């Protein structure tokens, strides 16, 4: 895989996104407005943060299915630390994020120390972390946070939803790391050929451990933002979010076998899905029709880009 073929999928996807935006704005005059688009940005932040970290994980040929459960666990702990332990809310949120990050670290440790395949390890922790969230919360919700806390999930900074700044910052930092640092190249190397990377002296285990920890951190951060957006905590928060994030990542051109993928692709994939969900709804298509179309777009986009690629490089 060379750089040209990498760029090709993202270009294709970006064109598709533009086409979709144009078509949808003709369907409803309320779609292509600044306030609607910013609002959509607010709604896609949690999946976006998780998808960014997931891009790294999948680029190494791994996967992290436990992110939704980590999100739920962090949400519950934020509430429990604040209400039951009486910590100040910032400390409670930081503590919860620390635990979420540790949950990601534990995934990484199981995967690297015990050589458990990522899919199996995170399937097991998917059940475990969700179970911990349910057990700790005793199925109780924690509500009634102070108003300033809602700025994170419901407020705006300079006219843009607060969490969208966080997503943008995360996307930019992650793109730089993945594209321009030695560490980013290590990620691709592991994904292309793990054994060869190990023999060429790259710190495979450390990199993977760091990635799963980062994935846990992203999910935990998304959890706190989610709590602030919906103003309550529940142990079932984030159920199924892993498949949404993976959909955005693979639609964005990251190979599930590892070795290729970009943050730009993931972000375009994410925007495409969100635009379809929102635009079709505004155009009067029901939710079940929308998810069918997203499924079809996923298959067709990868199919089309495969065809382009083959005719181009072979």
């Amino acid at each position, binding site marked *: 895989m060379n750089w040209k073929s990498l760029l090709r999928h993202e270009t294709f996807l970006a064109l598709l996104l533009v086409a979709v935006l144009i078509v949808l704005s003709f369907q409803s005059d309320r779609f292509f407005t600044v306030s609607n688009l910013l609002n959509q940005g607010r709604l896609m932040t949690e999946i976006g943060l998780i998808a960014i970290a997931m891009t790294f994980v999948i680029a190494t040929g791994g996967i992290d299915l436990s992110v939704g459960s980590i999100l739920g666990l962090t949400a519950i702990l934020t509430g429990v630390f604040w209400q039951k332990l009486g910590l100040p809310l910032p400390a409670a949120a930081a503590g919860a994020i620390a635990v979420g990050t540790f949950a990601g670290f534990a995934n990484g440790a199981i995967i690297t120390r015990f*050589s458990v395949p990522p899919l199996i390890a995170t*399937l097991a922790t998917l059940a475990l972390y969700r179970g*911990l969230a349910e057990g700790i919360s005793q199925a109780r919700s924690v509500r009634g946070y102070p108003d300033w806390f809602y700025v994170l999930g419901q407020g705006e900074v300079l006219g843009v939803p607060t969490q969208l700044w966080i997503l943008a910052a995360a996307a930019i930092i992650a793109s730089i790391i993945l594209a321009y640092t030695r560490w980013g190249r290590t990620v691709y190397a592991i994904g292309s050929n793990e054994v060869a990377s190990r023999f060429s002296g790259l710190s495979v285990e450390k990199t993977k451990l760091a990635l799963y920890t980062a994935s846990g951190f992203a999910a935990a951060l998304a959890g706190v933002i989610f709590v602030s957006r919906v103003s309550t905590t529940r142990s079932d928060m984030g159920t199924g979010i892993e498949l949404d994030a993976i959909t955005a990542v*693979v639609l964005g051109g990251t190979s599930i076998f590892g070795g290729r993928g970009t943050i730009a692709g993931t972000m375009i994939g994410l925007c495409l899905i969100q635009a379809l969900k929102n635009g079709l709804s505004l155009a009067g298509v029901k939710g079940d029709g*929308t998810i*069918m179309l997203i499924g079809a777009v996923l*298959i067709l986009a990868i*199919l089309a880009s495969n065809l382009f690629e083959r005719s181009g490089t072979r």
Partner: protein
Amino acid sequence: MSAVVDLPPTRPASAAQRPGFLRRLFADYGQELVVLAAIIALFVVVTMVNPRFISANNLTTIFSGNAYIAVAAIGMTMVIVTGHIDVSVGALIGVLATISGTLAVAGYPVWIAWLAPVLVGMTINACIGALVAYARIPSIVVTLGALSIMRGGLISVTGGTWITNLPPDFLIAQKSVLGLPVPLVFMVVLTVLAALWMRYSAFGRSLYAIGGNAEAALATGIPVERRTVAVFVIHGAFAGLATILFATQLQVIQSTVPPNLELTVITAAVIGGVSILGGSGTVIGSTLATILFATIGSALIFVNVSAYWLRAVIGLLILATVLADMLRRRGRI
């Protein structure tokens, strides 16, 4: 355990050359034995707490109530052994159950209502397999897409109406053969046939070769593409068979996709010893893993685990089984 060394993860070497029947058994079926040991341990412990655990009724609940998951996991195992995955199987079973139930209520002979899900499942999965094999789209992408399409489509078409008034003849999962519940018979017979077929037929052996190294398999003359489609078709047939059990267990069919069924089926396959990288694993393992989950679910109620902590304990037990197997492999290296 304290002296963990950073060994490169090595694929377990085929230990066929090692002497001794037990060692060979352990080498070939290590994960299966770990799962079996866990099941037996659970049975012993829980029966000591509450002897009703091994009453005939409870054994029926454990073995028969979840047989459809085991049957679906057989197909999933074959797909994963070839190095692919299918996250759409839950949605597929939902669609097939609706088709089967609709036919039964419409008055078609029951054998048509039973055969239809198998045939439709094979057809749908033939399309999925073709996209994977010939269009070279990774299976997780195709099946993620198929999952959305089928889940959305099912609600669009049925509008969520349940199917009731099923004819009594249709409800095969509630019948018994020679005193054994039909789902149990399905599970055992299909597992044994599939296990023998995968171990001894040329076709079955070739799946391991494809999963282990597709390029090498191609070089040795295995038609990788055609085999891939065939595996998905067989998986579709098993999904259809699972549907028959699923749809006939109760007197009503819920027309929504069973929540998280695909994760349960995949977990059963991988915990049962199927390496997600392909190339190893048996359907005996996946069936045993299904039984393990069913046993855990039942056992935790029997030993009065606080319902709030139930899922955490299930997660811990799954993790323990996985780690035990990894330590076992580590011990062998």
